[in-house]
Structures are given as C-alpha cells and as structure tokens.
C-alpha cells in the first residue's frame, strides 16, 4: 500500500510491456525458472532474461539463490501497490460521483419544491460501491 513514488514509477514502467505482464501472470500461478517462463514465448532466453532483469529491478519479482535455476518469484506486495494506485484513482471518482449525485438531487429538490429553511446537506452515502 505504501510504496515510494520512485518504486511505483519503476513498477509502472515494468508493467508497461505486454511480455512482462504475461510473465507476471504466469508467476501468479507459482514460481518458475527462466526456461519455463520462456516456453510460451517465441523469444530467446537472453530476451526473456532482459525482461526478468527489468522486473527484478522494479521489485515486482525476486529470484532464488540456486545458481543453476534461479527460480523467479512474484512479489505480490509490489504488484498490489501498483494496482492499488489505479484502484485508488477509481475509488476517488466513484465516491466523488456518489456525492455529486446526492448534491444534484438535493439541488433539484429544493429548486422544484419551495426552498426550505435551513441547510440542505446532501445525504452522505456511506455505502461503498462494491468494487471489482
């Protein structure tokens, strides 16, 4: 949840590439070696390795110590940090729109009916919109 902006930027840049996203999808099902990761792609091992380096630098994956296989592991926290950011943006607008909706209803109620004394505060809808 709390990621430095630098880290977030690196994660976003890493996520910008479809091959890297596919690699992350594969890793979400479990750790895998470079060979296993390369299998579904028509890409050379060095090509895959380059992507893995970007992912590793961004903190989205880590790699095991085993000198021969060095299995890749998805760092879920980093990925969630990046995805949280998008979710947060969406939530802000959803909640803002909820309030605007209530405000517009209150405005139109008071302009159609006789204006009532006192303030009309839009009914605060605290119910969270069920997200994804």
């Amino acid at each position: 949840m709390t990621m430095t902006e630098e880290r977030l930027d690196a994660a976003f840049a890493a996520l910008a590439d479809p091959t890297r996203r596919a690699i992350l999808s594969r890793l979400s099902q479990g750790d895998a070696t470079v060979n296993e990761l390369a299998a579904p792609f028509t890409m050379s091992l060095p090509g895959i390795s380059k992507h893995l380096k970007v992912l590793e630098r961004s903190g989205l994956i880590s790699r095991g110590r085993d000198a021969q296989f060095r299995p890749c592991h998805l760092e879920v926290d980093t990925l969630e940090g990046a995805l949280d950011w998008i979710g947060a943006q969406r939530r802000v607008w959803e909640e803002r729109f909820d309030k605007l909706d209530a405000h517009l209803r209150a405005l139109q109620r008071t302009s159609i009916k006789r204006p009532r004394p006192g303030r009309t505060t839009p009914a605060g809808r605290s119910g969270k919109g069920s997200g994804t």
Partner: protein
Amino acid sequence: MSDDTAQKELRFTRVFEAPRELVFQCMIDPDHLTHFWGPTGVRAPRERIVVDARPGGAFKTVMVNEADGGEYPTDAVYDEVRPPERLSWTEASSGMRVESDFVEVAPGRTEVRIRQYNVPEALASSDAQAGFLSSLDRFAAYLGTLA
C-alpha cells in the same frame, strides 16, 4: 470511438439525473465543489477552493481527511473551459491531465466522462506504450480472479 483513442487513459463515467448546464456548473463553482469534491471521509473546504474558470486559470483544492486532518492540496491549471460540454485541467505537480466531457444522453440526463492522462508522471518519459493503462486495468481484473 476507435480502440486507439479508447486505450491510453484511465476513464471514469457516471450518468446523473440532472441537466448538463447544472452538472457543468457544479464542476466549476466552489459553492458546489465543496459538497462533493472530497471522496468519502474527506472534506474539501469551501474557503480553500480556487476556481478561475478560463484557459490558463487556476483550479486549486485542498482535501482534508476527516479522521486525521491530513491535507492533500492539488494545484491545477485549466486547459479548456467550454460550458457546458468540456472541461480540462493539468495538475502542476504530477503533470496529470484530467479531461471531463458532459454529454446530454437524454433530456435532464447527463453523462460525465472523465479521462486521466499522464499517470503517473514517469509513465510519459518511460517506454510506456499507449494502451498500457487500460490493459493494466484488465490485468488487475484478471489477477483478481486468481486471488
């Protein structure tokens, strides 16, 4: 309408039961903005909202977290102000551009379409591909199904 234009931004849409002029007015009038600009649990005090609704004019808000008093100021500059159909601004610190279109979908019904570009700043300067944000959204949904 093409996929190309549909894919390079974050988009948020909502239909309101109100005439377009009123909805647009709400977005540029501090007396209205203070009622809804802060999301749940966050206030946007009226006296700290600055709106100079013309191209190059200032759009400043401060959101205050009701729980801990934390403040989130945003300084932006309007790029387009075309009542009642379009409003756009760019945030100074992040470079994020926000465009709002107001579409009358039926008499007294208005669809507001928000699009955010340049999110976050580094994306623009990195090798990020156009289309990545919406595909990232799909990716998030996909991962959600796995969790």
